[in-house]
């Protein structure tokens, strides 16, 4: 299927176009924007991002690792230090806390990479350097027969230009 690429100046117009396109059942679309815009993201996919689950799992894993690591290592070769118990929970909480943050952060990054499908070696054929300037782009896969219709739809929603990437 060919891909139609519409170039826009304003996020509102992009959002409107996307809503329309999705309404028409063109779900395989990609929006390129130079900066994040809530309305655009809302229009493309209203569900909240899944990055939060990565963060949560990372954090939980971190706290468990923190305590497990410290307690296990202290008990593996028990040595009396300063008259304190082998497993000194208050002291180990610092480690657990730091690992919570560390794992949470690293998992969040992993989340970004997974969800954002990064890294990718090749850029999309529809991507243009214009979209890292201050223009927006909507790339939508349409069957051959709908090309004209979508082209019109885009232009009617203030697309500056519309191009086509053949299948």
């Amino acid at each position, binding site marked *: 299927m060919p891909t139609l690429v519409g170039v826009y100046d304003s996020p509102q117009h992009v959002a409107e176009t996307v809503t329309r396109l999705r309404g028409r059942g063109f779900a395989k679309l990609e929006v390129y924007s130079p900066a994040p815009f809530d309305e655009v993201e809302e229009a493309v996919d209203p569900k909240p991002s899944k990055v939060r689950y990565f963060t949560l799992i990372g954090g939980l894993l971190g706290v468990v690792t923190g305590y497990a690591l410290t307690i296990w290592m202290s008990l593996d070769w028990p*040595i*009396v*230090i*300063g*008259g*304190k118990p082998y497993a000194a929970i208050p*002291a180990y909480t610092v480690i657990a806390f730091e690992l919570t943050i560390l794992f949470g952060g690293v998992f969040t990054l992993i989340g970004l990479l997974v969800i954002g499908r990064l890294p990718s070696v090749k850029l999309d054929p529809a991507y243009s350097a214009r979209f890292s300037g201050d223009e927006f782009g909507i790339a939508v896969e349409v069957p051959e027969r709908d090309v004209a219709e979508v082209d019109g739809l885009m232009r009617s929603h203030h697309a500056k230009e519309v191009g086509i990437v053949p299948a």
Partner: protein
Amino acid sequence: MPEFDRREFLKIVGASAGAAATVGCSDPVSKLIPYVVQPEEITPGIPVYYASTCLECPAACGLHVKTREGRPIKLEGNPDHPVNRGSLCARGQSAIGRTYHPDRFAKPMRRGADGKLAAIEWDEAIALLGAELAKAGGRSWVLGGTMGPTASEFLDRWVEAVGAGGRVVYEPFAPEALVGATKTLFGVETEPIFDLSGSDLILDFGSDFLETGLSPVEHARQLATARDAAEAGRRATRFVYIGPRLSMTASNADEWLAAKPGTEGLLALGLANVALRNGGGTEAGRAVLAPALARFDAASVAQQSGVPADAIERIGKALAKAKSPVALPPGAALASRRATATCGAVLLLDWALGAIGGAVQLPADDGRRRSSYRAALALIDSMKAGKVSVLLVHGANPVYSLPAAAGFAEALEQVPFVVSFASGPDETTARAQLILPDHTPLESWGDASPRPGVRSLVQPTVRPLRDTRAFVDTLLDVGRAMGGSVAARMPEGSFRTLVEQAWTASGADFKQLLSVGGVFGDARSAGISLAGDALQLEVAEPLLEGPGQFMLLAVPSPLLYDGRGADLPWLQEIGDPVTKITWASWAELSTAAAEQLGVEYGDVIEVETVAGKLELPAYPRGGIRDDVIAIAVGQGHRVGRWATRDGERRGVNVIEALPSLTDESGGRAWLVAKASARKTGGHYRFALAQHSQDQRGRRLGLATPLAALAANGHGAPAASAAAAEGGGHGDGAAHGEHGHLKDFEPAKDSDPNSLYRWGMAIDMDRCTGCSACVAACSIENNIPVVGEEEVRRGRLMSWLRIERWVGNGSLEGGAGLDPILPDEPIGPVDVRHTAMLCQQCGAAPCEPVCPVIATYHNEDGLNGMIYNRCIGTRYCANNCPYKVRRYNWYDNHIHNWPEPMPLMLNPEVTVRGQGVMEKCTFCVQRIASARQTAKDQQRPIADGEVTTACAQACPTQAITFGNLKDESSTVVRKSDDPVRGFRSLHELNTRPAVTYLAKITRGPVEG
């Protein structure tokens, strides 16, 4: 870790078989060098002990030399020896360094035409000396220090055989005046033997018997016995110090009377007068002396001596009441030109009080050669007159230790052939034509007789490290080389043969004697009576040369003695017991005098006498008379690796400012000159081993009054330890309420399955501050010496230090960089010595902060320090409130331990490299080796079976080491003192294993 340490020993195991050259070339760690023939008594890894004798001072303590694989690694006291009973002073401990001194002469040396010394062969050297002697005949003389009986007897015979002019014995601090006084008073030429252990009132007229006096180790033990806290209820022994300066000995007194130096005799007679008038003393004393002493009334004596009349009255009365008083005559520092009279006066006081025959024994003369300063001066005169062609100098450094005014150095110029037998370079060898290096005492045979009745053997414990020969053997060889009648008169064999013959003459078994260390008998006075002319002594104020506001006091150094210790780095680096100054000279003067001169701490002053000028920094303190400047003897050397500052003189030699004068009996007078002082404008930063002697009321060194002891100590129910540990906030009593102190049981701070919790009790009442423990610790534990500049930066490595606290201290001062100088008032003395070492805390602040578990609490309650795990964050040291951890800022052993010193390293203690922390672990290597024995015999380590190096060395047994879990152990008994027991900085809840027993303040003597 540096690679040259323990393993090197094994390497040199082979070297001792005479193959050093073959094994020295390869990588020291990759070869195993066995013996060619393994000596029967040596098993590699197991130490062998030999009994011997310390020859550092005339006291001649018995030694047990600990050797490993044929190398002495530590000197310990011989427990059977009557002089030291197993302990050993700092000087004795450090003496091991003489053998391993890097600058020892490797061979005989001869001064060439270019004025430089060059090595020659022994045969050549001996032939040369023989020829010179033959040429000189009666124009040859021998000058040297005291020797053992065998060597001394031989030397006399040798002098006669070679037809030499004679022999002079020269010992700088010899008690010539005392012997002279004994002879005058009682007709016996002998050194009195003092025993303080049974006395209830000890009067020290400045003998400084705890530091350099007659027999310091022995007297320290006796003093501790006399004042034993356990006996305090029954016998409240008091110790009064009479002298111009609060010396280390004085710091241990109960009362200090700052008598004008040289008036001790007057004071002694004044006190005798009061005592006899008040019904004290013996019948005979009262009958003979009372009338003669009438003119020494308290008022006039007070006027002359500067001691208040009421104090004289009070102490006189106390003497009258005392059951067993004893007075000790002044030592070298106070030997004026009337020293014989002064000593006589003190002995007279002893006689009047009935101490002669009791606490003071005057055994019959053993006829040995004594030091004579007069004879030395006569020899100098004949040298100057060109009447001496050959001078043999042995066992002494007269160029250094004789006053410049005596002109010895100039006299030497007149002697064409000067021979020295020193084993290492000194000021005298620098002027010698021929050097025939002697063995060190650890390499040599010999003997000593510190006093009648006691004879002590010296035996070699190591093959000579250098190509040296025993002095006596050299003389034998020279005699034989001279041929003819001289050779015929030389005895058969070697020095060893002579010693063996002398000792087995009575049929004794030599091996048996060697294993014991000597013959330890007793000698008591026999039929002593006062000579008729005894009262003719001219007891009067001292005669001092020259003008000046001050009297110059040349004090024998507690550590360097007469300067012979100056090239032993440990002695330089242990702080002076009073001022805590290391590696330098200083002039002590009173705070008032300093103020008058406009001088502050460290300001350089110029001290001028008729004989010379000295420039040195001032140390103003409370504990000295306003009209006295005191300078320690021992520094100011021109030769020596450690004795000098890179070849420049280190400090000043006070002897250079003293006129050369004798007392009435020909002994050397030290208190001879007046001095003036002025500020020069220079300043010197002392390298201190202790910053401040003011404890600011903190719980570091506590004291408790005798009354508290009497009330609680015996029979009374034990007060809780916590309550007893209060105080320290101003009133000086170890009493008070401190609710926040958490009580704890140190015994519980170890693994429940362990049989041990190692702990220590340190009795501050016994500790004299002598620092023997510090030296012992350093040598046992391979602790490096770092030098003056590093000490100045506080980088001293000693694991153990003696903190000297003057009273409870105050909250004044501390804002500057200089230490807070203590105010040491005349009258009741309150100086406390705290041996500070790792407290092996149960809740150690150092442990939790170490990120790598390099320090931890072991199952036996020790605070372990694992050097090889340490990465050097130094956090532990920050967090140690006692500040007993030491850090290796450099690779100290490489920088500061030149070859062959690494040979004396204890192979059982890891040598710490650059960047690691180190500290005391209660000599864990000793515990480990005791554990070996105990495990082999399948029993626990018994009480007393293992002790730390510090506890072992302590002359007063102030330190008790043991197992706190063993209810019956001595350490538990001592630690459980409800009145005196306290723990340093207990309010920090560190749960230390060391219990300090508070110093007892006995207060002034009651009349």
